[in-house]
Each structure stands twice: as structure tokens, then as C-alpha cells.
């Protein structure tokens, strides 16, 4: 990896302590400085009234064109319900081997599923999701190791099954010279 840094951009309100924890874990996983920024977007432009969700494809494109640069991997943090046309929802998505990604904590909270709120669990899930999407921007694919953070998750339960870390195989992949984008 010859990336200079990772940029996390929050769109909407996020507690500072949450962002700090995420930044620390991201830095630990990718061994790159993490920069914080606040981003401002008129999310109504991305709202699909028929689905009552936000279009993830368009948001990703916007983050990529307006906020990302070649010198960093940029991840937009959201708290709205994301979808892509083909799927009922997404936790996040990223341009594979690209510059940008997005992640939302909307569907990661226990309340969404009628369970007692658990802030720690929410933070843990969101951190994993952020690390996961950033992994895609570095060219990492879904991992078959169920405890690897790059393992595919379609339900929150899947996210809870995995660790926050990259498995040794993904780490090895990440450190290959050709992964340096």
C-alpha cells in the first residue's frame, strides 16, 4: 500500500467518541493516518420516495466525485437507510479498487429489529462495516473466513459473527505490491 491516508467523512450527526473509536480501529487495520472531515450533502436529492430509502449508487458516486481524491481512500459515513436498485437494502458499498465507499449505521442498531439498544454493539458493527468497505477500496474481495472482517454480511447477525480484523490471508493480500493503489 502506498496510500497516504484514509479520509472518513461524516454526513449528518455522529458522536465524536464514536468517530474516534472508528478512526482508531481503521488506523490499526490499515496502518495509515486517518483524517476526519464533515461533509454536507442535500440528502433529499438521493431520497427515493417510492422506496423511502436513499440511493446508495448515487450517493457513492457523489462522494467519489465531490469528496474523494487519488491521494486517499475516502469513506462517507451515513445514518440513513441505503439501497441500491437491485437490493432491498445495503449496509454500505464501495468502489472495488476505487477511491471511495459509503457505510450507514441505519440498519445496524438493535432498535431496528425490536431489541434493546446496545450502543457498544452498534459501534462495533459500524466499525466493522467501515473497515469492510475500505477493504473493498483497497481491492479486497469477500473472504470465506467467517471471522474475517471481509466476510460478506447480509444480516447484522452476520456482522456480529465476524471480528474487526482482517484475517492473515486478507492482510497478506493487502500487503501485496499490486494492491497499492
Amino acid at each position, binding site marked *: 500500500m502506498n496510500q497516504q491516508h484514509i479520509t472518513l467523512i461524516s454526513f449528518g450527526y455522529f458522536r465524536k467518541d464514536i468517530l474516534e473509536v472508528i478512526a482508531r480501529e481503521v488506523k490499526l487495520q490499515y496502518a495509515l493516518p486517518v483524517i476526519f472531515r464533515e461533509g454536507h450533502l442535500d440528502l433529499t436529492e438521493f431520497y427515493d420516495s417510492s422506496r423511502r430509502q436513499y440511493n446508495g449508487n448515487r450517493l457513492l458516486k457523489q462522494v467519489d466525485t465531490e469528496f474523494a481524491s487519488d491521494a486517499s481512500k475516502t469513506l462517507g459515513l451515513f445514518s440513513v437507510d441505503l439501497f441500491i*436498485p437491485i437490493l432491498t437494502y445495503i449496509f454500505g458499498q464501495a468502489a472495488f479498487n476505487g477511491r471511495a465507499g459509503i457505510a450507514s449505521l441505519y440498519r445496524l442498531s438493535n432498535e431496528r429489529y425490536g431489541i434493546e439498544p446496545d450502543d457498544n454493539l452498534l459501534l462495533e458493527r459500524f466499525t466493522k462495516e467501515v473497515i469492510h468497505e475500505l477493504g473493498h477500496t483497497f481491492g479486497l474481495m469477500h473472504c470465506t473466513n467467517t471471522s474475517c472482517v471481509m466476510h460478506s454480511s447480509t444480516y447484522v447477525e452476520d456482522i456480529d459473527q465476524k471480528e474487526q480484523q482482517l484475517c492473515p490471508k486478507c492482510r497478506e493480500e493487502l500487503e501485496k505490491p499490486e494492491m497499492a493503489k
Partner: protein
Amino acid sequence: MTKMISILIVDDEESVRDSLYSWFIEDRYRVECAENAKVALSMLESESFDIILADIKMPGMDGLEMLRRIKALRKESIVIVMTAFATVDTAVQALKDGAFDYVTKPFDPDDLSHLIRNAAKLITLADENEILKEKVVMLENVEDLIGESKAMQEVLRQVESVAQSNSSVIITGESGTGKELIAKAIHSNSPRKFFPLVSVHCGALTESLLESELFGHEKGAFTGAMYHRKGRFEMADSGTIFLDEIATISTKMQIELLRVLETKKFVRVGGNKEITSDFRVICATNKDLKSMVENGSFREDLFYRLNVVNINIPPLRERVEDIPLLVEYFIKKYCTSMNKPLLTIEPSALRRLEEFSFPGNVRELENMVERAIVIGNGKKIQLKDLPLEKSLIDNSAESLDDHEKNHIYQILIKYDWNISRAAKALKIDRVTLYNKIRKYDLKPSEER
């Protein structure tokens, strides 16, 4: 290690194609996209995809029509249809037309992952099944064909390539080289392997017996024909017939054989009903059939009919490097069958075996090893356990008698102790040969 599953996405909406593309790429699939059925079908002409994910509603040709065309092109294709307007009718129609499944847009991410994973599992299983089938075929009945020598590897390569065809094969090679094993290997690796391999030792039968053996006979066809009997050609229906020592058949039988090979039809001896049998023919001989054709003792037309493929098995003396492997194999084979602990062979004994000319080829070596295991001390095969040590092939033999004994023994082995043929080869009469055998106390090795 499983192969990379390929997916073709067919949808007129770019956003759908892009989303699915990203989704599957991240899941380690190989993904291509087509914006309509026409493009997809033209892609499928030049490239195959494991899974085709196609939208039903598309301008021009719709997904259902495309599904039918894909299935006509490649029946085993896995097609999953997607629709934003799910109706029972379209879903049922798609499944009737051979779709693997259908999904309604937008999909639950987990449903889509599951669906694709299930399809991929099916493909992987089908591939593994094919590979296993191939492996089973590859390994069947070739365990006795030992040899890492270039010559033997070439024989095995020929066996492999000829097995899948239906061509007639002539296997040539000296006595004891394993011609029948090659015939078995060809049959076992051929599409006919689930049907019989029927062997006929032509040299062991008189003309009339051979005729009855090959074509069968009806009740009362000749004295002693108490019941009707199926012939070997009939028994080999859908399978293979192996005619060993083909050079020994009479001119009359050659004509009969040619006719059967051409028409695959024959009549049982004493019968009048024509019987059809679908068999493949493999022949073997230790004679030079071409010279026999030249001197008129073997029909040229039959020769060409049989000699579509010729596999020549080299004599053991031309592949000395295989001897240690063969010895090891026979030791294991006989120690196991005799419930004895696995023996080893003394290097000096092995060296002598490698120096021996083996006129009786692998069969002779096998007999020697078997005999050594029976008479040996149960620990190691030593030089003294091998018949070649008893000066039969001893280079130190100096007397004329020793040489005569040695020579006669080798000829007898070469002709499988067929006294008439050995005597003919030695240019002495049978009585003289018997006297020599008695004089030198020559005995065949243990029969296998």
C-alpha cells in the same frame, strides 16, 4: 480448490447491471454484463457462463424467450430470471421452461447471495462429479500396467487416447508382455466399460469349436449341442470382444470374422435367425501380421479391418528400468495374497534380474518373483531364490549342455510351454523336445 464461477447479467437497466456486477465481483465471481437478450445470446455463442441472471422484462426479446433459446443451446445452463413484476404465471412459466429459480426485484441481499451460492454449489458438484468420473475411468484396470519407462508411458498414452473411440485395435507384443491387460485397460476406460469384455483365446480352440464359441449354436447343431448357446459376439453386445492370438485362426474363420466385423450380424451355428450385436473388437498377437499378409497366410482385408490402431508393447528387455517397479509390485501382490510380510529384494538379486533377457517377458518375471516368495526365507529375496541363479541364464555356463538347457528353457517360456510351438521354433520334433525337457529336468514356473 474450486473453480471461479462465471455469471452473465442480462438487464436493460444500467444501474441494475452495475449493482449486480459490483455485488458479485466482491464475492469472487467472474462477471460479465449484457444490456439485452440479443447481446447476451451472441456472447453465449463464443463464451460459456455458469450462471445467467436475466431480467424478464426487456425491450426486444424478453427474458423468457431468451431462457428458451439458452436452454436449446446449452441444456445444463443455470438461468435465474429476475422480475420487478412478479406474477405466478411468469414465474411458473420460467420454471417450466427450465429456469433454475426466479427472484423478484429488489432482492433481499441474503436471498440473492443464497440463490447464487446454491447455484454455484450445484455447478461445483457437477464439475467434481465429472472429474471424479474421469479419475475413476483413468484408474480402472490399469493398476497392473506398471512402467515408468518412456516406452510403457507411450503405450499407456495410446491406451488412453484409443479408449474413447470405437476403432478396432491390434495389440502386438511378445508373449508375456501383457497384451490382455492392455485390452482390459482399453475396455475399462471406454464408454463400453459398463458392458462385458468377452475374451476368446483363438489359439486354444479348433476351427469348429472356435466357430461355435464365437457365433454360438442352436440346440442339436452338432453332436453334444444339447442346448442352444449364445456366442461370444452375442455376449459382447454393447461391450468389447478380445480375440487373443488372432494370427492362429484358419482362413475360413478369417472370412467369417471379416463378414461379422463388417455387418455386425451373424447366425448361430445350426440356426437361421440373424443376430445383431454391437461390439468393439480388440485383437492381440505375438506374430507379425503384416508378414503373414504378405505371405498369404492372413487375409489383407481382415488385417486392415482389424488394424485401425496398433499398440505395440515393448518386450521387458527393452524397458529394463521398469524391472525394479515390477518386482516391487509383484512382491506386494504375492505377499498380500499369501498373507506374508512384505519382503524386500537383495540389490544383487535385483541387479541380476535387470541383466536377464526375459524371453517370457513380464509373465516370466512375475513367475520368478512368485516362486522366490514361496521358496525364500521369508525375509529377503536372494539371488539363490531366483531360477536364473541356477545357471539357466548363468553367463558362466560354459558347457554345450548348459547352453542347450538354457536356450530350450527360454524358448519354452517364450511359447508358454506350448510343446508343439516350442519344438517348431527349435526345429526339433516334439518327442526330442520332451526328451530334452526330461534330461534337463525343466519345469514351468508356478502357474498364476
